[in-house]
């Protein structure tokens, strides 16, 4: 199944038999997935198919009714978002969740401060080593020039990049990108994803990204997992997954 | 048994007074989403205006029973003159801003009105106690109660029914309800939200002023009257639920009875009994007993 995974290491993420209902709606039914180190897995599916539910269960926003989730072999089912973040799962948001009144640099420093190792009543937030690391990461995302600007003054595309950069600050084990190119104009999508993916390559980061744009999926995913009606209906390399009959019928709409 | 009746009667009369005063506060919050600290100031202005109107009526040789009309007119005058002025110049520039910011704006308004009343009416107390004797005394059991207090109960009921009827049975009231539910949707449906705001604010101020006007014969009308009223109205409205009219009634009853109980059985608790109830409600059911808005609790 995960032919591209590095089979020498344990899977970064192991989700098994995840179930979730909301009242009478089955949002997730027997979802299982294993992701190896360095994989770039795209989660596709139409709205309401279960991708968001899956992501929310992985990040601790909701608790699965049944099933288990493990990060590097360690069970994280039912933990709070905060605890899961500390174990190494980071996420970005479809609508960028930033501190709009603070500067770009301050947002990066917030990410460092929240992670806790340097949390103190005395230690300055703006110390040289923290700033240096933050600016290095901003540089990889092409945001170095904006570091002194207030977020509320910045355009959407820049905010998206910052949102992702913040998630990367504390070197997570697993990064979840929630629709990274949604709301980004057509001509900016590829340059943006180029920047993001290159930065992630340098870290050999394991990434799951929810995406609706199949061009983006084909170009950047090493593996595609398709959702429909609360189930995973395909899990393969992009070419194979996108040629799958069910995927074509229920996700990409290229089969009547 | 007698004491129980006394507690009940005192509680209900106090609750009636509270209801008349707090109703306006909850209405203004429900429609404009403003928790108006200056509500007590409008109460005070109503009391002062009533003192003036009753004096004028007396000077013009009207019969004593006309003093009630004088008080009503005073309340109307306050609402008609002061409300539009305050709403337009002081509140309108801040609509849509953070709810706590708006509270601060009304705090500024409270400070301003405190001095405005001093400038208009001076610092010496006014006494207009004649109307208090209008309804004579009522004997229940061994206790003698002032008829005026029961008049207040009647007014509270009338006001409550009138506001309920006005909101639920008239066309204008339905527009107000629409704005309470969602200002954005109502506005996009063509409702003149500005007018609704003005109307709701006007009614709210009228009720505050009416409360003050009707209370004028019972107290010495002087600077500082507003301060105690504000805080107890807040308690009533928080307990009943911000923006809820039945809530204001229930809240008033709870506060009225709690205070009455304390006064008669444990005077040491008289003052803080109200605020303890307010704090407890906030801790366990912050949206109040009648849910109207979701409390921002994490």
């Amino acid at each position, binding site marked *: 199944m995960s032919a591209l995974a590095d089979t020498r290491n344990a899977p970064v993420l192991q989700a098994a038999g995840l179930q979730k209902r909301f009242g009478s709606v089955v949002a997730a039914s027997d979802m299982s997935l294993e992701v190896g180190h360095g994989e770039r897995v795209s989660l596709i599916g139409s709205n309401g198919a279960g991708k968001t539910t899956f992501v929310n269960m992985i990040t601790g926003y909701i608790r699965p009714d049944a099933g288990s989730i493990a990060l590097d072999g360690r069970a994280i089912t039912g933990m709070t978002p905060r605890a899961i973040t500390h174990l190494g799962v980071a996420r970005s948001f479809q609508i960028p969740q930033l501190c709009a009144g603070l500067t770009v*640099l301050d947002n990066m420093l917030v990410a460092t401060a929240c992670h806790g190792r340097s949390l103190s009543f005395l230690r300055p937030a703006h110390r040289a080593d923290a700033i240096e690391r933050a600016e290095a990461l901003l540089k990889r995302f092409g945001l170095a020039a904006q570091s002194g600007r207030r977020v509320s003054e910045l355009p959407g595309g820049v905010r998206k990049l910052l949102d992702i950069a913040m998630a990367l600050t504390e070197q997570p084990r697993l990064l979840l990108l929630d629709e990274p190119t949604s709301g980004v104009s057509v001509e900016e999508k590829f340059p943006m994803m180029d920047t993001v993916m290159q930065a992630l390559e340098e870290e050999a980061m394991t990434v799951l990204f929810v995406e609706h744009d199949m061009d983006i999926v084909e170009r950047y995913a090493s593996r595609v997992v398709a959702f429909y009606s609360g189930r995973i209906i395909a899990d393969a390399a992009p070419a194979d997954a996108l040629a799958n009959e069910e995927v074509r019928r229920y996700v990409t709409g290229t089969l009547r | 048994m007698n004491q129980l009746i006394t507690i009940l009667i005192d509680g209900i009369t106090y609750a009636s007074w509270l209801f008349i005063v707090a109703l306006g506060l909850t209405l203004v919050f429900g429609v404009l989403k403003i928790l108006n600290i200056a509500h007590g100031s409008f109460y005070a202005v109503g009391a002062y205006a009533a003192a003036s109107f009753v004096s004028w009526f007396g000077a013009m040789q009207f019969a004593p029973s006309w003093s009630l009309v004088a008080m009503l007119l005073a309340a109307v005058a306050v609402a008609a003159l002061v409300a539009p002025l305050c709403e337009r110049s002081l509140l309108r520039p801040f609509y849509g801003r953070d*709810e706590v910011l708006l509270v601060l704006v009304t705090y500024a308004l409270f400070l301003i009105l405190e001095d405005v009343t001093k400038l208009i009416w001076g610092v010496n107390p006014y006494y207009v106690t004649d109307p208090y004797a209008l309804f004579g005394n009522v004997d229940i059991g061994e206790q003698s109660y002032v008829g005026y207090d029961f008049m207040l109960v009647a007014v509270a009921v009338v006001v409550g029914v009138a506001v309920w009827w006005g909101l639920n049975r008239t066309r204008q009231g339905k527009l107000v309800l629409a704005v309470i539910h969602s200002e954005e949707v109502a506005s996009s449906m063509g409702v003149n939200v500005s007018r609704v705001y003005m109307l709701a604010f006007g009614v709210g101020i009228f009720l505050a002023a009416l409360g003050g006007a009707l209370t004028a014969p019972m107290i010495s009308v002087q600077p500082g009257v507003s301060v105690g009223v504000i805080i107890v109205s807040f308690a009533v409205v928080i307990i009943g639920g911000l923006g809820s009219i039945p809530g204001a009634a229930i809240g008033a009853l709870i506060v009225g009875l709690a205070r009455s109980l304390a006064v008669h059985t444990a005077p040491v608790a008289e003052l803080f009994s109200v605020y303890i109830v307010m704090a407890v409600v906030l801790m366990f059911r912050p949206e109040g007993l009648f849910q109207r808005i979701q409390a921002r609790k994490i």
Partner: protein
Amino acid sequence: MQATSATLDKPALATRHGAGRPRTLLAGLVLIALLIGAGALLPKWLTFLLTMAASHGLVSLGIVVLMRCGVVSFGQGMVFALGGYTAALLFNRLGMTDALGMALAGGLVAALAALLVARLIAGYRGIFFAMLTLALSMVLYGVLVKTDAVGGSDGFNMGRATLLGQALPDASVGYLLYAVTIGLSGVLALAARVYFDSTRGLVSLAVRENELRVEYLGGSVRQAVAANFVIAAFLGGVGGALTVMSLGHIDPNFSYWTSSGEFVFVAILAGYHSVLAVFIASTLLEIVRSFSSLYFPNTWQLALGIFLLLAIRFLPGGIGSLWAGGKIKTSNGGRP
């Protein structure tokens, strides 16, 4: 090239914070020393005014601490009263007369009380946080008024404090209290500045902006708000104790809502960017209050009210935003 533009556009904010810190602290200490020294030359009414400005300023500083994580407390009167009554009772009942001792005791008692309710209170925001803090301060007021053991609604007086075992002649006690108040307030103000610039301080600002993101970055919103609540209580308690020592009298009005309102007024006027601004705003209020009874007894509240409206309308970031924090775009609906 990317590299050069990055180095050329180094954010001024970061370098200012990083390099400027020891300088700011030094400047602060010099200012405190100057004020204490100058106090010996100033007329008594002025040193008293400044003493009140500083002790009240501490209470407002507590509100600013909470504003920085997104909530406004309408009940600082509670900790102000707790601190004041603690100091006065220590003096009268236990014979503790040391000014510093009483001040710190006041702060500790207030902080302990806050600790009891901190976790609960940290779950509230907006109007409900304001109302709950208000309710608690009014509960304390109600209790104090009816407790004859502490003087009931009249309160009680306390005598002159001492410092480090030294009792001073009546003529000098005013200056002693001035020095202690300015010194202690100054040190606490500098400590507040250090806290604001710390990693926890930054997390507080982030909580104000986006609680969700803070949780998803691994931060604890509840911890941040609770910690700020306790710190604000300590500052308020110390302020209350210092006030009582100079005033010589305490009564339940310390906990009344109008008292809390005045502290909020100063905090809003000052904004949350500059610690110095809080004390400047507090001094302005004391000046207006002092001269009001002589010159404009019936219009000073009117002036304050208009002042507040103008500040909210035209300087939403407070006085402090004039030199620290820059222009605040009201992207979050203009929260104070």
